[in-house]
């Protein structure tokens, strides 16, 4: 609103919470590179500043077999994820790259089933957590 009243720090924080770290349709469309979520096998979402959001459903609804039924390789290098609660069941996923994120815990008591749906994984990259992801 252009009422001349400057926004305060709380409003800035709120706006940041709402708008940053999300996987927007624009980003997804660009990274799908002509494929659809149903057909894509190799998805590179590296360097998108994606993060674990207060409402975990944001990513639970995406990283699963109903949304990406054919995904074999998922590259999330250089994002800001703090845990692995973001994955649902992805039976075909073979390679998961989570390097250069902010992952501190693989297990939190609030969600005991993380990674459980990723039974086909052959490669996991969890290197360089935090150090390069400022």
């Amino acid at each position: 609103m252009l009422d001349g009243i400057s926004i305060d720090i709380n409003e800035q924080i709120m706006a940041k919470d709402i708008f940053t770290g999300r996987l927007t349709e624009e980003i997804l469309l660009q990274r799908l590179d002509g494929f659809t979520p149903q057909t894509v096998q190799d998805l590179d979402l590296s360097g998108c500043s994606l993060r674990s959001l207060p409402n975990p459903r944001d990513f639970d609804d995406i990283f699963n077999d109903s949304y990406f039924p054919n995904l074999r390789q998922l590259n999330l290098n250089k994002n800001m994820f703090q845990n692995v609660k973001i994955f649902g069941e992805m039976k075909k996923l073979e390679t998961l790259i989570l390097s250069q994120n902010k992952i501190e815990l693989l297990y939190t008591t609030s969600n005991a089933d993380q990674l459980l749906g990723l039974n086909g994984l052959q490669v996991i990259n969890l290197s360089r957590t935090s150090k390069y992801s400022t």
Partner: protein
Amino acid sequence: MSFNCLKDLNGIQYANLSRLTMLKLNNNELSKIEFLDNLKNLKDLDLSCNKIRQIDQ
């Protein structure tokens, strides 16, 4: 000095990772390696640049 970083592997034992052949964990702050005995097909494990002092038999 990093403030949040992977320090342990607790939780990995709950996942069914029997097909896992490669696990890259380099450049973290792991001080012990636990729960890796379930990874029957693991061929390639990178634990370089961590804080591991000893590996038990």
